[in-house]
């Protein structure tokens, strides 16, 4: 039950700034995510928290204690690596027992704890198998078991699913979430897969180029992406973003954009305060038809369907609009190459500043329940 505080963390390698002064706090027992593309600094941050790297400046605090200068051995944390890093020459039993051996725990109790942990992770049947002979999924579970067997205060996970076959990822993620709930252990989870992060984390930070772009609960991140970057990163597929302008004519404000057939009357555009904007909408919020839809408010853009991707029961249409690709999700089937009209309800449109990338206006009607697969 430990809180983790990262205070103005900076890490510079030679000339490259990997982490550019970030701060956040992970609450006790929280499942916290660090999400971002490769090179954003999330792994470096995790390594600084673990003690495998020393920060250039800034502090790491566990429960208020400054551990920045403490070597990893003394931090009492558990860590799961992307490459599993289990001891290949040892059996599953010895792998699990290793941390306990180091702590001079007597053999009898060691055996008890190993069996307990193996039971928890479903490894009981393979206790005598050598590490090198396990399947990747088993290796990762073993890695998890070894990480928690000595009751660490904090659990760190560095892209634990990335090296696994996609078929095993969800199941392993379920194990991780289950264990975390059971042990109520403060957990920090690094990944580049936004679907993973959004589905298991209590809160997460989206990182880019060494900075935190947005920090919040998954719903906030998903429904109110704070920057253009976050909007374009989160979501399967992410938000469609197009350049536009806000024009004020006689007391009313409009959004104009090369893709829009008409000026779009937007009641809130005035309050935005900027003229050059980026406007966006989520693929699942738009509808598409072969004939223009005549309902009043809302944006209409025209395009031609380039390809269709089927994901589970949904069709993701890649529509060529004015040279750009716009994605729309709908259950209906419309053949490739068709000329279509895409209709976006007014209340689903997001507005971002073109200059700063920050969110200027987000649709109000977002009280939807965001469904988590692990409820």
């Amino acid at each position, binding site marked *: 039950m430990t809180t983790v505080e990262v205070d103005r963390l900076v890490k510079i390698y030679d000339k490259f700034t990997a982490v550019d002064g970030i701060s956040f706090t992970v609450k006790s027992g929280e499942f916290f995510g660090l999400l971002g593309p490769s090179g954003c600094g999330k792994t470096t941050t995790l390594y600084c928290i673990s003690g495998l790297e020393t920060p250039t400046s800034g502090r790491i605090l566990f429960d208020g204690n400054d551990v920045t200068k403490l070597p990893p051995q003394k931090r009492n944390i558990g860590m799961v690596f992307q490459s599993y890093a289990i001891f*290949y020459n040892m059996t599953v039993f010895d792998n699990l027992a290793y941390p306990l051996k180091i702590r001079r725990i007597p053999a009898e109790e060691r055996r008890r704890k190993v069996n307990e942990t193996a039971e928890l992770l479903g490894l009981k049947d393979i206790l005598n198998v050598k590490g*090198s002979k396990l399947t990747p999924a088993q290796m990762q579970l073993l890695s998890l078991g070894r990480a928690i067997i000595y009751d660490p205060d904090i659990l760190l996970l560095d892209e634990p699913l990335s090296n696994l076959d996609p078929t095993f990822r969800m199941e392993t993620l379920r194990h991780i979430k289950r264990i975390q709930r059971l042990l109520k252990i403060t957990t920090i989870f690094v990944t580049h897969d936004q679907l993973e992060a959004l589905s298991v984390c209590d809160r997460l930070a989206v990182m880019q180029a060494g900075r935190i772009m947005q920090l919040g609960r998954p719903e906030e991140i998903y429904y109110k992406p704070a920057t253009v970057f976050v909007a374009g990163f989160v979501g399967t597929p992410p938000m469609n973003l197009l350049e536009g302008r806000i024009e004020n004519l006689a007391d009313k404000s409009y959004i104009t954009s090369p893709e829009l057939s008409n000026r779009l009357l937007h009641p809130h555009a005035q309050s935005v305060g900027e003229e050059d904007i980026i406007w966006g909408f989520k693929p699942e919020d738009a509808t598409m038809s072969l004939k223009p839809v005549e309902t009043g408010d809302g944006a209409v853009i025209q395009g031609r369907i380039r390809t269709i991707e089927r994901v589970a029961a949904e069709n993701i249409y890649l529509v060529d609009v004015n040279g750009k690709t716009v994605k729309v999700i709908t259950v209906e089937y419309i053949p490739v190459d068709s000329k279509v009209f895409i209709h976006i309800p007014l209340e689903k449109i997001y507005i971002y500043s073109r200059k700063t990338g920050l969110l200027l206006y987000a649709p109000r009607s977002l009280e939807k329940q965001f469904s988590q697969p692990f409820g």
Partner: protein
Amino acid sequence: MSRLWKVVRTIIAVLAAAIAFFPIYWMATTSLKLPGEWSAYPPVWFPTTPRIENYIVIFSEPGTPLRESALQALGRGFSASPSAVPYITNSIIIAVSATIGAVFIGTLAAYSISRYRTGGLFTYIFILATRMFPPVAIAIPLIVVYSLIRWLDTHWGLSLIYMAVSVAYVVWIMKTFFDEIPKDIEDSAILFGLSHVRAFFKVVLPIVKNGMLAAALFTFVINWGEYAFALMFTVGGRATTIPVAISQLQLGGGYQYGPMAALGLIALIPAVVFGYIVQKYLVVGLTLGAVKGRR
């Protein structure tokens, strides 16, 4: 804190490097000293006036003006020492020819063993084992044969022995390199109509030429510094090589440390240079076998 440890480690490493370097340094400076300083006590750590007379003695013939000029500083004791140039020439001829032979023969054998396991494990171990035989043990009966066919004290005779003795390492290194090349490469060349022999020379060899270079340099260094066989097989003095010459400077009355050191330094330089170039490939060639099959 870890910086401090790095400094400590560096200090120890510097100590080790100093120990590694000092004997070479000492021999180099001895070669630049006059007789008075060779065994001076306390020792002359750094010769303030380096003299090249030792080198002149090595490269000049007795009786020539060049030699006389050197003798003024060194004393008459060196008046009769023969020039070391023939020894250097011998060493070069013998080492180079032996190396060419060993690399050629060894590479062919390595290919055969790598691709077809020719002769099985026994042949491979047999080849490697030949390196383990003490020269004296082989030499005694071999000298009998050599004297019968009059190959004693010939460049060719000694070169042949060197080839036999150094071919083992060539096979070891080259086999490792051949093992890494997929068989498909020759197979596709053969499908194109090349005979297997041509496929080998035109297609496979160019791929391993770095390995061959490494094996060549390594073999050269071994043969260049070989002492035991040279000692036993060049008694007549015609094919005498550098190592033997150096030891004779010791035995031949008077302790001629200066010229010995000079000759030694000359012998050392190609070895160190080649060895440095080759070290990376060496370790790869010698130890790759241990890496396969590990994660």
